[in-house]
């Protein structure tokens, strides 16, 4: 079964990516790097990506048939999607195990959701 593992992060969490303290920054990137490598080499990885911070987001919505293009993420909430992985594992328990291995960081919440099977698939 396929699951998506989503990392929701606070602004402080996003800031660590470019932390002026090289040690902090490097530790962050190597943690994520090791995780990606392990998930790929374990044969469960389908896809995934890290995302640029929410201020780079643009939203398209419709109000009264009118298209509105707006700057910023769709919802003004504290934790924003920072990246995701799609994995293929036997069950939810296995997916949660991979979620638990995602490097811990204050302000990071991991959400796991099953992927909708393709219609007729």
């Amino acid at each position: 079964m396929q699951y998506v593992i989503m990392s929701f992060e606070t602004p402080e969490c996003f800031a660590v990516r470019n932390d002026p303290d090289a040690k902090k920054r490097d530790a962050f990137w190597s943690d994520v790097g090791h995780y990606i490598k392990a998930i790929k080499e374990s044969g469960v990885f389908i896809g995934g990506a890290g995302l640029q911070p929410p201020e780079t987001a643009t939203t398209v919505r419709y109000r009264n048939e009118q298209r509105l293009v707006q700057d910023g993420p769709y919802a003004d909430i504290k934790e924003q999607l920072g990246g995701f992985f799609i994995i293929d594992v036997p069950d939810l328990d296995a997916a949660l195990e991979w979620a638990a291995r995602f490097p811990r960081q204050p302000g990071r919440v991991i959400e796991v959701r099953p992927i909708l099977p393709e219609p007729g698939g």
Partner: protein
Amino acid sequence: MTADLIARRSVEVAARASRSRLLAFLAARTRDLAAAEDALADAFHAALETWPRSGVPDKPEAWLLTVARHRLIDAARHARVQTDAAADLLVIAAEAQELTSLGTAFPDERLKLMFICAHPAIDIAARTPLMLQTVLGLDLARIASAFLVQPAAMGQRLSRAKRKIRDAGIGFEIPEARELLPRLDAVLETVYAAYGSGWDDVAGSDNLHKGLAAEAVELGRLLLALLPAKPEVQGLLALMQHCEARRDARRAADGAYVPLSEQDVTRWSWPQIEAAEKLLHTAQRSGQVGRFQLEAAIQSAHARRAVAGTTDWACVATLYDGLVKLAPTTGAQIARAAAIGEAQGAVAGWAALAALPAETIHSYQPYWALAAHLLKRLQRAPEARVAYERALGLCADPAMREFLVRQAAEL
């Protein structure tokens, strides 16, 4: 203190002290764990409503038992069960009446409850959670978190197990002598699983169950109280006590992970070690070797470093040889390779590790941590680096992660 508060406390005390005994008593007679739990929950609820007004009864347990059996009878009437079930319930009523009028404590049937929870007919993934819920009364959210399972899914797993017990008519009985030992193994396995198998030196990272360690020790003590002469029961408790003795020494002041061979022995708990050694000696006098006694003996060999100054790795490796013959788990095989690596050198350790089948280890973190360590000692730096990275990527414990980062930096 107000009467209300006193009553509330009394209910809490009664719940803590006798919930599992009351549950075992009721379930053993109805053979329906879920119904017994519901009835008992109703009884505690009724106590919270009644005791503040009427005062705490003389025999709180008898009071609770009486209410719970009324609830069971009501529920049975409601479900219009056949007359034989109703007859069973009347027997309970009479028995409860008799027990309370005699003033004797009702029998402790928690051992039956433990045998039920670990019954071979029950899904192996449900056994430990079922025991934690019914025997120790842990709540669902806590159990689900400890096993890294969705709470709703854990709830379903437990309900399914209870339905199975009822519908399959699994007897609430302590097995006959001939069947006792194999069945006891399942009970011990269940307690061991609750304790977590990640306390080996190299494994050290399996913290998923750590929060349950204290509960598992409690189960072990209960088991020993109910079956005092079984060597494997003694062995399992000795094993857990040896590990518990080192709990504080496993973390440095700043929270960093400290491997067993580098732990400060003055931080080990001597009363715990002595209690463990005493139990292990009693068990060994029986002359019946078993898996948990061997595991306890391995921990005992490690504990001897406090006296001898060094670890007798050859002795540890020999004990692991015996253990993998009795219980060839991946964890034990990896720990054996680690011991061989210390006793005979990194070449022999690596040979033992490399012999493990690839499909069992590709996402097993302790394997990669030990592989990295041995490859580093063999001065195969590029391979060691790859193994460290893999171990880090599979790691769910921040303290272990930092330890591995430090080790990798020495390459």
